[in-house]
């Protein structure tokens, strides 16, 4: 195999793009990260540095490691850098039209057998792939946030993805220290499909007045040894995104079990989107720390 992975193009410097870029650079690979404007580059870089500083404060990273990470990330506003990259991954919003346009830009510039990765949890890899001249080199990867600590990534085979491209995506996952879960294309794959009904059910439980939101969350968190409850997870993911996925899963499958809880819709319509807006099911400060934990919801030694 002549293909070796040294340079990675990441399209989109949002939360997911930054998180992937950090992990890729941490593993010693070079990254070019594309944003739409110099203003967006500045904002994205500032956010990335802030998250590295946060990790330093949590003892997970050192100053010199931060420097090394930043030195491996090149910020650009044009697609040209993709020409030198061994693999490209898009991390823009879950929007078919936007992703399609980006794939075309990449397809036009990249060496013909270098993989192009779509990062999606719900969209069809095959449908996006067929919009390109070489659909066989398009493969899906569903990273879970935060990419630096979550150990799993779903690697999604589209109908036309070749074995070679698929294996390269698996290798990319391994280089990042992730366990690749091999999945075929289907809305929601494994993780999203299984977690959303759980989250939805937690919302219904609150809506039906079985228990307060905080009690529902704490029961599930402590009962099943989760790091956080399903409602806090939804708050941190963004209730608008959760609703978007639910609606997509519902319309693709037609299954009533994926019908979004009316309470979720109501919160989104009110602009209460979770941690990022300070309020969803729970309350958060400007550092996204929850301010309304129950007295029982606290760490305990041994």
């Amino acid at each position, binding site marked *: 195999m002549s293909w070796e992975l*040294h340079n990675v193009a990441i399209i989109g410097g949002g939360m997911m793009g930054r998180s992937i870029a950090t992990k890729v650079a941490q593993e010693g690979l070079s990254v070019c990260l594309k944003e739409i404007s110099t203003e967006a580059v500045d904002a994205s870089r500032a956010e990335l540095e802030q998250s590295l500083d946060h990790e330093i404060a949590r*003892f997970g990273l050192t100053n010199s490691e931060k420097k090394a990470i930043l030195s491996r990330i090149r910020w650009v506003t044009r697609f040209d850098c993709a020409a030198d990259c061994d693999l490209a991954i898009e991390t823009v919003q879950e929007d078919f039209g936007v992703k399609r346009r980006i794939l075309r830009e990449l397809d036009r510039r990249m060496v013909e057998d270098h993989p192009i990765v779509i990062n999606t949890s719900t969209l069809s890899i095959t449908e996006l792939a067929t919009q390109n001249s070489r659909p066989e080199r398009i493969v899906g990867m569903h990273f879970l946030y935060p990419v630096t600590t979550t150990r799993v990534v779903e690697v999604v085979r589209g109908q036309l993805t070749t074995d070679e491209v698929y294996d390269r995506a698996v290798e990319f996952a391994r280089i990042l220290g992730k366990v690749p879960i091999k999945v075929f294309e289907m809305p929601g794959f494994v993780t999203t499909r299984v977690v959303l009904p759980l989250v939805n059910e937690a919302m219904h439980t609150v809506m039906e007045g079985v228990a307060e939101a905080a009690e529902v969350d704490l029961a599930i968190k402590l009962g099943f040894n989760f790091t956080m409850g399903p409602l806090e997870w939804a708050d941190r993911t963004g209730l608008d995104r959760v609703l978007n996925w639910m609606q997509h899963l519902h319309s693709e499958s037609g299954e009533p079990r994926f019908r979004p809880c009316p309470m979720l819709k109501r919160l989104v319509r009110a602009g209460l989107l979770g941690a990022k807006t300070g309020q969803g099911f729970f309350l958060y400060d400007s550092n996204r720390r929850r301010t309304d934990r129950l007295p029982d919801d606290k*760490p305990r030694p041994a």
Partner: protein
Amino acid sequence: MKILVLNSGSSSVKFQVIETDLERMNAHEDRTLATGQVEKIGLDDSRLVLNVPGRKPVADYREILEHRAAIEWALRVLSDPLNGILDGVDDIDAVGHRVVHGGEAFASSVIMTPDVVQQIEECSVLAPLHNPPNLRGYQAAYAALPDVPHIAVFDTAFHQTMSPHAFLYGIPFQLYTKHALRKYGFHGTSHRYVAFRGSQILDWDKGDKKLITVHLGNGCSLAAIDHGKSVDTSMGFTPLEGLLMGTRTGDMDPAIVPWLMAMEEMTLHQVNTMMNKHSGLYGVSGVSSDMRELVEARADGHQRADVAFRMFCYRVKKYIGAYAAAMGGVDAVFFTGGIGENSPEVREWALGGLEYMGIEVDTEINATLVGGEGEITTEDSRARVLVVPTNEEKTIARDVVRVLNGIMPTFEPPETVTP
């Protein structure tokens, strides 16, 4: 014979060419012909530096993506008619490889056969950051020099002479048998070289003495060496145990780890990084992991720098006392490593008050001995204290000679325990 010594890390390869043989070894006349390193492997601005004694250093830059290219580059520069020191790569008679972890499988330096390489691979679970790049370096060097012997020299082998009562932890025995969870110790080549060289300086040729070797560098460890055998050492299952170090905790109550993970909601990764990279001199002082800067800050009245300095010296002293007790006395203490060789302050504090053990430091001589070989105890001192600059590369080269001449000693434990 000319020996290439390689120390391969994940993104760097350090190399030396050393000319030595049995005669030169015994006369302490090994010659280092060149030292150098390739840095930033995997990036497009990799750098090679070559130092030949008596010449100006040479630096070169290019894109080096993996170890094989790095070692080919090093060999090319070493054979360069203008800057090099070899007539060609055929000049190299053997290659010595530093390998960090030999587990319980290796109690000696050995020729790297396919079996040996396989066993080193199996030890990777004990040193996941070090053994794999060590082996990448070997594979690259073997590709370039397939016709000469390659010898592995382990950081852990020298301490394999420890007895079970010294190397076992007080955890359920089956965890030792299942995971090989025990004290291994590190810096073995350094402790061995310093013990040998210190004894040579003192004309102690019988090897019947009780020695404590104190390696204080980036990592810090002591070894208790009785009759030439390591009977205890302060680093453990990993290099985290023992002395306070630049950024490492050294000894602490293990209950702190689960407590912090619960109360600070720290992940395994965070707590590991905290103990290895955010602690030690740096973590306590908040100033620096560098002893020189700490000594300066302390002189300026910086309290946390002062307490970090005192913690550091106090622990060295505690271990010296412990090892003297373990051996039933001590004939000599040898200091080495960047701090051990260059910090009279640390030596003075670590040895202060040990007169009852027969250690009397000549403070004037100690204060002036920086970066050289020499004795720092008074004429009347019953135990002798020496500063002995370490040379791990030379030990590796000498082991190559020993292995090829069939005189490499084995550092076996005196007894084993079966479940």
